[in-house]
C-alpha cells in the first residue's frame, strides 16, 4: 500500500520527462462525479409486504483526481461512496444455546460501500484530458451492512463487512469550459470479486449451526447486492482543471 501511494505521489514528477501538453499546460483535474444506475429489487420491506419489488434510480458519489501523464493518457485515482439495501428473508428454526427457536427474520440492511480505485484513461482522438476516452480501473471496495430486524428481540444486531476487488471499464466524453471547468459524461461497467470469507461478525452471543450459515448467506447477499449496484452506471462529472 505504501509503495502504491509513493508511486502515485511520484508520478507527476515522472511525467515531466515525457511530452505532455495537457490542456493549455494544465494537467490536474479534481472532480466530483455522480453515478446513476437502475436498481431493481426490494428495499424496505415489512413482513406484510413481502415479495413486492420496485425499480428505482440510485446514485453513487465519487471524487476523482486525474493527472495527465502523456499526450493521450492520464492517471486517475478515485474515492466513491454509495448506499444500497439488501433484503433477506429467513424463516425457520435456529439453535440458540441448545434450544431450537423458531425465528423469522427480515433483514433490511443498509449497506454502506466505500470504494477506492485507480486507473488509466486513454484518450481517443484528442489530447488528454479532452474528448472521448476509455477508462480502465482497479477497484477495492469495502462494504458494511448493519441493522437487521428480526422478530426475536433477543437476537443482537449483526453487522457485516465485506471486501471486494474489482475491475472496471468505461467510456467517457469530457469537455472543458472557460479553460478550467471540466464536464464529463460516461458509462462505466465494473465487476467485483468476493474476497473469500473475510467478514466480521459483531455478535453479542455465539451462535452455531444454522445461524452461522445465515450469516454467510447474508454476506453473500450483501456482496451480490453491491456487485449488482456497481455493475453498470451512467456517470456525470464536473471538475476543476489546474
Amino acid at each position, binding site marked *: 500500500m505504501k509503495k502504491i501511494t509513493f508511486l502515485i505521489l511520484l508520478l507527476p514528477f515522472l511525467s515531466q*520527462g515525457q511530452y505532455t501538453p495537457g490542456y*493549455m*499546460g494544465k494537467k490536474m483535474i479534481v472532480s466530483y462525479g455522480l453515478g446513476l444506475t437502475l436498481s431493481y429489487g426490494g428495499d424496505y420491506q415489512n413482513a406484510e409486504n413481502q415479495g413486492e419489488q420496485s425499480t428505482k434510480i440510485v446514485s453513487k458519489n465519487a471524487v476523482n483526481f486525474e493527472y495527465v501523464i502523456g499526450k493521450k493518457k492520464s492517471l486517475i485515482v478515485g474515492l466513491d461512496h454509495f448506499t444500497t439495501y439488501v433484503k433477506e428473508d429467513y424463516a425457520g428454526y435456529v439453535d440458540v444455546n441448545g434450544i431450537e427457536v423458531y425465528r423469522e427474520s427480515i433483514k433490511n440492511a443498509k449497506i454502506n460501500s466505500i470504494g477506492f480505485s485507480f486507473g488509466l484513461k486513454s484518450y481517443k482522438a484528442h*489530447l488528454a484530458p479532452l474528448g472521448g476516452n476509455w477508462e480502465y480501473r482497479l477497484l477495492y471496495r469495502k462494504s458494511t451492512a448493519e441493522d437487521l430486524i428480526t422478530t426475536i428481540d433477543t437476537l443482537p444486531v449483526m453487522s457485516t463487512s465485506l471486501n471486494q476487488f474489482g475491475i472496471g471499464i468505461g467510456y467517457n466524453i469530457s469537455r472543458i469550459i472557460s479553460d478550467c471547468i471540466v464536464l464529463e459524461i460516461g458509462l462505466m461497467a465494473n465487476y467485483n470479486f468476493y474476497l473469500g470469507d473475510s467478514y466480521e461478525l459483531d455478535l453479542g452471543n455465539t451462535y452455531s449451526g444454522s445461524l452461522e450459515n445465515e450469516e454467510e448467506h447474508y454476506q453473500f447477499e450483501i456482496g451480490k447486492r453491491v456487485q449488482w449496484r456497481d455493475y453498470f452506471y451512467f456517470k456525470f462529472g464536473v471538475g476543476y482543471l489546474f
Partner: protein
Amino acid sequence: MKTAKTLRILLLIIFPFCSFSQDWNYYQPLKAKGQVPNDFTDAYSTKFKKEKGQISKSSSRKDRKREESFHQKSEYFIDEFLTNGKVFYGDTITNYCQSVLDNLIGDDPELKNSIRIYTVKTPVVNAAATANGIIFVNLGLIAQMETEAQLAYILAHELVHFTNDHVLDQFIKEEKLNDGEDLYRNTSEDDKLTELSNHSKSHELEADEQGFEDYFQKSGYNTNAPFEVLDILQYAYLPVDEVPFTTNLFEHGNYQIPGVYKLEEVASIKAVDDYDDENSSHPNLLKRRKKLGRLIDQKGGKNYIISESLFKHCRKIARFELSRLHLVNRDYVESIYNSFLLLRDDPENRYLRLSVAKALHGLTVYESESDLYDVLQNYEDIEGESQNLYYLFDQLGEGELSVLNLSYVYSLKKDFPEDEAIDKLYKRALELLVFENELVLDDFYSVSLDSMQSQAQGQKDSIQENHRANSKVAKIKNKELDFQAGDADNYWKYAFVEFFQDDQFVEDMEDMEEDFEENENSGNKKDKKKNNEGNDRFSDNVCLDIHQAMVITPKYLNLDQRDEDGIKFFSSEKNLLEYKEILNQTAKLVDLDLDYLDYKTNRGIDDITFNQLAILKSWVSERMNHVNHPVLVSDFDNIAEAVESLGSPYLINTGHLSLREKEADIFLKLCGSIVVPILIPFAIYDICTPDYSSFSYFFLFDLNTGNALMAEYNGYDNKDSKDYVKSIVYNYMLQVASESKE
C-alpha cells in the same frame, strides 16, 4: 484624343525612372506600390454590407434575396482571390492597363471611379470582371498581346460585363433554373445546363459587341484588333512564341547533345476555332469572329494610343515574370522554353539563365526521386516547337539530366562567380550528381573526343611500327584503344572537359566525392544528402526551441454539407478572428513571440508588407506542392530581403476547417437500435445531434533552408468548439517552443 495625349505625356513623365530603367539582368518580381486599396484590407463582412446596401429596394423580395445571396458568395470568393498573394496593384502593368481603360471610358468619372484594375501573377491567358467593379488582368494575357489595341479591346469587353451586370444576371438565371421558376418549371437537368451555357454565351457576344461599339470604336484603336485578339486566344495555350528549340542552350565546347534526342518533326498545332461549345460558357471563336465581322465595317485606327514603348516594356515584364511563374507552378519545361525565347534577344541575361538553372535543378531533383513525370508532361500531348524540349527531358537517361544540370549551372557560375544564388544551385548540382547518381570525376573525360581519338590513333600507329605488331598483345591493345576512341555514344562524359582546367571545379568535385565516401562508409547510413535542405521532419513530437515566428494569413473555414453553398461565410470570418486570438493566447503561454503577416490587421498594412506577403505566400504555396522533394523553392534568392526585415526565418502556415455533415443512415441506425435495444439511447443521441468533422493543420518552415521543421495535421470527428481548437493549437505551440529533452 485630348485625354489620351494628356495621359501619354503624364505617363512619360511619371514612369521613365521607375519603369524603363529596369535592370533586366537582375530582374526583380513585379511589386505593388502605393497605399494598399481597401479591396485587400477590408473585412469580407464589410464588403458584403456595402454591396448589400446597394441592392435596389424596388425589386421583389425574392430578387433582393437572390441578389443578397449572390453578394454573399461573390464577395467571399473575390476576397479569397484578392488575398491569395497573386494579385497586385500600383505596379507598372496595372498602371498602364488603368491608363488604357481610362482612355476607353473617356469622360465618365462615375464609371472610372467604380472600376479598379489589378494585375494577377498567373501564366493563364485571361482577364475577368467582377460584379463589384474589379477587372483582373493576368500576366499571361499581357505576355501574349501584340499591340495595345488588342489589350484595349479585351478591357472594353470586360468593361461591358461590369456595366451590364452580367455576373449577377448569370447567377440569378441559375437560381431561377434551380428553383424551377416561371418557364423552367419542368426543365430537365441537361436542359438547365444548356440554358445556362447559352445565357453565358449571349453575355459574351454582348460584351464583344457592346465593348466594341460603346468603348473600343470611339477610342480610335485599330478596328482589326478584335479579330487579332481572337487569333491570339485560339493559340493562347501555347508559349508566347513559336520558335524551334535548339540544344545550343545547354551545349558548350565538348558537351554536345546528340541529334537522337531531337524529334524529326514536332506535333502540329491542332487548335481550331469551330470547336463544340455546347456546354461551354463562351461561344466558339468562329461564332465570335462572324458576329464581329457583321459589326465591324470600317478598317483603320491605331495600334497604340497611350504608348508603344510602355506597352512593349510591360509585355517584356510579363514575359520575364512568366519564367518565374512557371517555376512556382513546377512547370519547369515551360519555364525553360520561355527563357529560351527571351534569351534570343539577350543571350547573356543573368535572370533568364538563372531561371533555366532553377528549372533544371527542379527537374533533376524530381528525377532523382523517381518522380520526374510529376513535373514533366508527356511530350506526346505537346503541340508545336516546345515539344522538342519535352522530348529531350523525356529521353535523357539516368544521370544525364544531372550532368546537364551541373554543366549548365557551372557555366553560369563562371560568368557570375560571386553570385550567391548561382553558387547555391551549383553546390546542389554537385551534390545531386555525386550522391544521387554516384558519378565522380573519374567517370568523365578530361580530354575531348577528338584528342582522344588522335591520341589513340597515335598509339596504334606506334604499335604497328613495332616488331610485335601482329602479336596477341598488340591485338588486345589495339582493341582497347578502339574502345576508348569510340566512346562517342557517351556524349555526357565529355561534359566537363573544359571544367577540368578549373582547379575550383576539380576541388569541389573531389570534396563532394570525399563526403560521399564518408557517408557510405559510416556505420549507420545517414541521409544521403550532404545537408538537410528541403528535408522535412514529420516527427510526432518535435521540440524546436523557437521563440520567435511569423504566422502568414491563417485560414479558417466552416463548411456545411447540408447547405447548397457549402461554405458558411460569416462564421468562417468570425471563427478566423477567434482562431487568431487562440494563436496569440497559446503562444503567450509557451513564451513564443508571434507576429502576423496578414492583409486584414487592425493596424493596416503598407506596400512593403503587401509585397512581403506576396512573395512569402508564393514561397509557401510552392513549398507545400513540393511536399518531401528537396527542391530549392524557386524564390529562394528573392526572399532574403523579406526574411531580414521580418526578423525571423520561421514561418507558420496554419488553419482549421470544420464540416457539418448531412445526417446519414438514419433508417439503419433506428433498425439497429431496435435489434439491440440497449443502443436505442445512443441511436437517438446520434440522430438528434449534428455530425461534424474537423481538420487542423500546422506547418512551420525555416525560410533559410527551406526545411519544414514541423508538419502536423489532425482530423477529429467533432465540432470545432473552442476547447478542441485551443487544445490542438497549444500542442502545436508547445512543440515549437519546447526545448528538446534529449
